[in-house]
C-alpha cells in the first residue's frame, strides 16, 4: 500500500509541474494549467500525507 501511495504522490508532483512546462512551450492554456495543478495538489496531499506523516513520526 505504502509503495502505491508513494508512486501516486510522485506522479502528482509530476502532474503539478508538467502542465506549466507545456504552458511555457506555448502548448496549453493557463486555465487548464490551473485546473490540472489543483487536481494534482489534492492528489498530493491525499496520497503523501499518510506515508510522509508516518515517516515524520518515526524520525521524531
Amino acid at each position, binding site marked *: 500500500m505504502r509503495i502505491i501511495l508513494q508512486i501516486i504522490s510522485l506522479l502528482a*508532483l509530476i502532474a*503539478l*509541474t508538467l502542465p*506549466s*512546462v507545456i*504552458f*511555457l512551450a*506555448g502548448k496549453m492554456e*493557463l*486555465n487548464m*494549467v*490551473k*485546473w490540472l*495543478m*489543483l487536481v494534482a*495538489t489534492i492528489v*498530493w*496531499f491525499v496520497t*503523501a*500525507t499518510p506515508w*510522509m*506523516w508516518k515517516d*515524520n*513520526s518515526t524520525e*521524531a
Partner: protein
Amino acid sequence: MNTEQQSHQTQSGSEFEREPVPKSALLGFKSFIGMYAGEHCAGTELMIGPLFVAAGVSAFDLVAGLLLGNALAVLSWMFLCAPIATRKRLTLYYQLEKICGRKLVTLYNLANGVMFCFLAGAMVTVSATAVGVWFKFNMPGLNDLYPNSIGWVVAVAVVGGLIAIVAAYGYQTVAKFANVAAPWMVLVFLVFGFVGLRQFIEATGTEVGSMGDLWGLAKTEIWKGGPPQEGQVKFTFWHVTFFAWFCNMAMHIGMSDLSVFRFARKSWYAIASSAGMYVGHFMAWISASILYAYQLHLNPADTDVLPGPLAYRAAGLVGLLCVIIAGWTTANPTIYRAGLAFQALAPKSSRFKVTLITGAIATIAGMFPAIAMKLLDFVALYGLVLMPMGAVIFVDFWLIRKFGLQSYYAELSKRAFNWAAGLAWLVTLSICLVLVKLAWIIDKLVNWDVFTMSDKVQWIKDTFTVQIFFVSLPGWFVAALLYTVLSKIYQKKLRPVAAE
C-alpha cells in the same frame, strides 16, 4: 528565509540540551540535504523576490549576485558554523551560556524572541494577502507603514489568531504538515517561474528560440535595472550578493545552526545547505520576482507587493493555497520558537499562554505592513542583531587561548554575565547602527545647529555612512576584536578560580 529550520532546532533542541550529542545520535548527510532543501521555501520568499524588482535590480546583478551570495552563505555554514558544531556538539544556547553566563544568554533570548515575533508578523502579513483576493478589501501598498483598511486589520487578526492558536495547541502537528507540504510548495514556486516567463513571452511578443533569446528577455523586460520604486533603495550586484549571504546570517555566522550541525558526523555536511540556498534563495526568489515584474509590465503604476494576488494570477487557487500554507507553516515554528525564547525569561509561565501572547504580538506586528514591505531591511537587521554573538563564539573557540585567555569564561568563573561578551555585543550593535544612521544623525545635528554642514562634515557623512546590507561584515571584525580586547581586561580583573 530559513524559519522552518527553527522547528527542527526546537525539536532536536529538546534532546541533549546540556550535553554533547553522542555518536549514536549522529545523522547522515542525506538528513541535512532533505532538511535544508525543503525548508528555505518560506512565505517570505514571496516578498523578497518582488522587493528585488522594486529595488530596480538588473538581470545580471540578480543572477550573479544570488549565485555568489548563496555560495558565500554555504561557505559560512561550512567553515564558520559546522566546524565548531561538530567539535563541541552543543546547542547554541548551552555554548553561549558557558561563554556568556546565564543572564546574558537570557538577554540574547529576549532579542531573539523579539526578532522572531516581527518575522512571524511578516509571515502573517503574507498569508493575509491571500485572504484579500477573496474578500476584496483594500490591501497595503509598497510604501504603506500602517494598516489602511478595516478589512486588512480583520484579515490579519483572523489569520494571525488562527496561526497562534494552532501553534499553541498543536505545534508538532503543523510541523509535520509542513514537511508534507514542502515538496509541493517548492514545485509551486517553480511553476510560478514557468508561468510568469510564458506570460512575459506572450505579453512582449518575444520569440524565444535559444538561451540567448531568454537572457535578452530577462535583461530588457523582466529585470530591467534602472531606478528603484519610490521609497526603495537601489539594489546593485553587491546589494544582492550581501543580502543573499547575510539573510541567514543569524544561522551561519551568528551560529544558531550549531544546534543543527551538532548532529552531523562531519563538518562538510554543511554543504547540504546549498540545497536550501539554491532552491529557496535562488529559484524561489527569481520565480517570485518574475510574477511582480509581470505585474509592473501590465501596469507600471501597480507597485503593490502582494503575494496573494501575484500567486493567484499565476496559479489560481493553488497559488493562493501556496501563499497561505507557506506563511502558516513558517509562522508556526517562528511563533513557537519566539515563545520558547520568552519563556526562558519566566520559566514557570505556561508554554500555552506564552505562545498565545507571542502569537498575538506577531499578529499585531503583521497588521503593520511596514515590516513586510521593508523586509529586505528587516532581514538585514535581524542578522545584524544576532551576528556579534557568532563572532564571540568564533573567537572563544579558535583564538582566545592563543592570547593566553580562558575559553568558556563564564562557566569557569561562575559568572552569570560575562561583561566582555555583553559589551562586545552591545557596542558592536551600537557602532553598526550609528554607521547605518550616520547621514540621518548628521542631518539632525545640523538642523539643531549643533554644527554646520562644512565640506569636512559632508565628507564624513558620505564616507562613513554604511547601508544596513553591508555593515555586518565590518561589524563581525569589530565584535571579534572587541571581545578579545575586553576579555584581556575583564579576565585580568576577575581571574577564575580554575585558572589560579
